[in-house]
């Protein structure tokens, strides 16, 4: 156990206040995020330069990164325990926003009412809700020694409300992210195994009941069955795999990918950005990106381990589950391993809400890391 030995200080640094947060920044985590953000910006540029309608996007993307990094740094400097104390406000606010987006205040894009339009900008409340829910569940579960069934029920309720609202948009991808967060946090949060098993059985039965009972509208049913069926691959998936595979070992080189140049993969600057990496930089480039994302996950996992308290651990686990699901689902769908659903690749895909939320999420993890010696 090396994690809690930080207090056995050496004489050389004894003169300084070793508990000060700025001494405990996880440099590797910050650096890996920085590298991925730079790579992402380059890829967004590469994916948008051939389409006249999209040429300004990379500038906006960098703008989002600036905002995101600033907010992330700010969140990192705030002791996560203070954020935990505010959880009812964060939670309540995000639930209100999720409710509001279903009203005429929200904008509908591709049949999903998931955005607020603010002039030229749009904002996806689900991204904020993911973080608010992570903080809330961490606050609630971290405060207890044992998770009995009453507590489990409350935690499930906290997760179920935003999940249900997101599903109502309907945004199946984000709903699945909530489910992944729930799974990770409940497992690590100390829910008993038999409760977990019972939950699993209930979840499967519930889904079967909902689908079977005809409670869903036709289009919802279609989406669900489309999501689950992998036979008869769609145009998107075929084109995505074609792009990635033809990149080979070293790729066509930046700006040289024919699939990318021709715009054969839809939304290649956001949900399908990994195809650009795969085609233009080959196995070396895309493997490197996956490895960097792996380092990101590893660093978060490490912070979860060395966190000062269980709430800190749970925050990290929530963020880890969120990122892990995003990464595996997003890259997996471009590789034809996972069904297609519209969720972005963190730090790489174009999209303001995603970039900012991801930066803030890393800010939270950094906060847990930096404040692990403060009381």
């Amino acid at each position, binding site marked *: 156990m090396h994690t809690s030995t930080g207090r056995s200080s050496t004489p050389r640094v004894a003169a300084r206040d070793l508990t000060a947060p700025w001494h405990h920044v996880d440099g590797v985590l910050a650096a890996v995020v920085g590298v991925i953000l730079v790579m992402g910006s380059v890829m967004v540029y590469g994916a948008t330069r051939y389409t006249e309608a999209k040429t300004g996007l990379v500038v906006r993307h960098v703008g989002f990164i600036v905002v995101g990094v600033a907010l992330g740094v700010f969140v990192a400097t705030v002791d996560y325990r203070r954020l935990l104390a505010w959880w009812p406000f964060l939670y309540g606010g995000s639930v209100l926003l999720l409710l509001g987006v279903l009203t005429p205040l929200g904008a509908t894009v591709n049949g999903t009412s998931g955005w607020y339009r603010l002039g030229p900008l749009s904002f996806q409340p689900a991204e904020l809700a993911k973080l608010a829910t992570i903080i809330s569940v961490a606050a609630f579960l971290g405060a207890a020694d044992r998770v009995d069934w009453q507590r489990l029920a409350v935690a499930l309720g906290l997760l179920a409300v935003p999940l249900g609202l997101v599903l109502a948009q309907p945004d199946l991808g984000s709903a699945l992210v909530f489910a992944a967060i729930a799974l990770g946090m409940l497992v690590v*949060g100390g829910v008993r195994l038999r409760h977990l098993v019972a939950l699993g059985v209930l979840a499967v039965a519930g889904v079967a009941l909902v689908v079977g009972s005809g409670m869903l509208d036709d289009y919802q049913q279609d989406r669900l069955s489309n999501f689950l069926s992998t036979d008869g691959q769609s145009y998107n998936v075929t084109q995505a795999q074609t792009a990635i595979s033809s990149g080979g070992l070293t790729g066509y080189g930046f700006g040289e990918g024919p699939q990318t140049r021709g715009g054969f993969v839809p939304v290649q600057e956001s949900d399908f950005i990994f195809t650009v990496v795969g085609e233009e930089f080959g196995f070396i480039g895309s493997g490197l990106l996956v490895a960097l994302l792996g380092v990101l996950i590893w660093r978060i996992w490490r912070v979860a381990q060395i966190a000062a308290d269980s709430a800190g651990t749970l925050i990290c686990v929530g963020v880890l*589950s969120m990122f892990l699901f995003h990464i595996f689902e997003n890259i997996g769908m471009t590789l034809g391993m996972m069904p297609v659903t519209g969720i972005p690749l963190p730090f790489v895909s174009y999209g303001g809400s995603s970039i900012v939320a991801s930066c803030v999420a890393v800010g939270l993890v950094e906060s847990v890391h930096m404040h692990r010696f403060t009381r």
Partner: protein
Amino acid sequence: MDTDSAKVRLGAVGIVAVSLFLALFARLWFLQGIERQEFEAASVSNRLRVIQTEGPRGRILDRNGRVIVDNRTTIVVTLDREPLRERVSGLDERDPEDLEKIREELSEEFESTAAALTSLSIPTTAEDIWERYTDKRYSPQEPVPVAEDVGEEVEQYFMERTADYPGVLVERRTVREYPYGSLAAHLLGYVGEINDEELLARGAEVPGSDEEPATTTTLPGQEPKPYEAGDSIGKTGVERAYEQDLRAVPGERTIEVNARGEMLDVVSDTPPVPGEDVWLTIDIDQQALAEAALAEKIESIRGGRTSDGMDIEAPQGSVVITDPETGEVRAMASYPTYDPRLIVNGIPTALWEYYQDPANGLPLNNWAMQGGYAPGSTFKPITALAGMQSGFIGPGNETFYDQGVYELQNCSGGKCEFQNAGRARLGSVDLTRSLTVSSDVYYYWIAENLWLGRGAYGETPIQDTAEQFGLGSSTGIELPGELSGRIPTPQNRREAYEANPEAFLTGDWYTGDNLNTAIGQGDVLVTPLQLANAYATLGNGGTVMRPHVAFQTTRAIDATQPPGEEGNYEVVRTIEPEELGSVEMTPDQYGKLFQGLLGVTQDPGGTASSVWAANPTAWPFAGKTGTAQVRDKADTSVFAGWGPAVPGQAPEYAIAVIIPESGFGSDVAAPLTFEILTPISEGRVDPVCPLVEPERSECEQDKAAAYERLAAATAAGGDEGDTAPGTEEP
């Protein structure tokens, strides 16, 4: 929260994370490392489009290099029915009620398009457009033309208003141009859009069909030229026969496109190779002369009566002129004719119906090689030779006394008496005389004796000789659709009867059949081309040449200069004269035929002597009249021969003229032959001018100048010899 348990559970999360990342790496390696080639091919086919670019079709030139078929660009307004059909989906065009509904539904579109065309001074009604819309001759996917040969202002008008006129397209097409109008139309043939059968035969795939294309075969040493749906292809005549030469090799442009099909880049561009120019053996001036004389003759005799009182219908007629030494066709005229300029954008319905109605003489048919006629007395040289070859007519000068009637020797019922035309008593005739005066009785005598002596002569000495001349089978001319004609024999009579006993009275061969055959009647059928070729064989001393209409193909060196100009072309392929066989004749036998046929025009008793007597052709001409009887109709008038008919001198022209339902050979076909041959023999065929400007004006001026010079020279008379060449005043 139990710390140890939390660590374990966190470890489990870590294991899950590691597993998921390993799965991603594995899949990534599988796609990029192992499956790469397969997907790379998909990527290539995704973005690269190969476009076939058409090159100009080869031109067709006459023997002197004058362009008679050229290319030009035309602008056509077409109607793409697909977008209109979408509006009336659910209605069935085959159901008359639905069809009426479709018409109502789309009437507004048709009205507005018609109004627009009318305002652009192309008078059009909605009715016209509807007719095209329902035109069965166009495949449903194919846009139908609604206005052809329109100006650029029309193109611009519709290009700027595509949204207002759904389905209306404006296309630029390259079409054939005919500087001499309908001249030689049958011989030249026409081009049309390639059909499914032709595509398959040329190894191309038919869109929307699973049929396997054929493995293509071409002339040795020639690469097959690729085709795709929508291409033009020769349908008839020279256009079809020389398709492989005329066809341009399409270019191939490979472009890179994006997902929306927009072009990003030209990857490679192989320009098309223009088709080769085909030089015909035809002399366009002689062709024009033959066509004009034929048309004038037919039109002048129509409605009159023959000398034996029958109505002259003359529904059709043909003239074929060949070079007896080489088999080159100099002119091939068929009446009635059609104007290929009217069908460059497809044959309009009304015109098609007109062409298909037999009452209009079937103008698309090339009667010169697709019409089969009884040759009548023009067949007699063949019977005469058969008589000599069999030995029935010996080298001595056997004569037979022609009383105008011939009675069969052992007549056992049926028809026993055969007579000359008009029971003419021609007196004592030998073989030579029998040809000159056209005695039927002499040939009845030969025919009966050959049949009675079939134990010694065989059953078919006459037919065997006819076969040597190439009659009864196609001549091998390269033009498509040649009729093979028919020479009746006991055997094929029997076979025809056995195959279809209802259609014939008998399957037996009687003496009378031999008699009819001997004078080119009965079941004997020849085409004008076969007859011309047979007389070419007589003219050249017995060599059967394959008639042909082209002698070389060339490629222009400078595309901007006339393709027939001296030094501006290189020869790609030469079409050599081809000997198909020969007719066995001793000099004595040949001499008798020669003298007999020369007498036809030269001897005072010759059947065509009155035609030639007044003003003989510049050189002696040997030939034979023919008058073939057709039940209840006027006789078929036939003439065939060659010239110059001078022993030891190569003949230059063989000719055959056949006009059905027009009367005696000496009344119609012989005078027509004379009219055509006189200027040819004198070397003063009136040059024909193209119909297109500025060539027409230039040609007319040259012609006028030539006439002036000729007139001046004639007026100057004897002084001409004193003027040194080159000092002539302009």
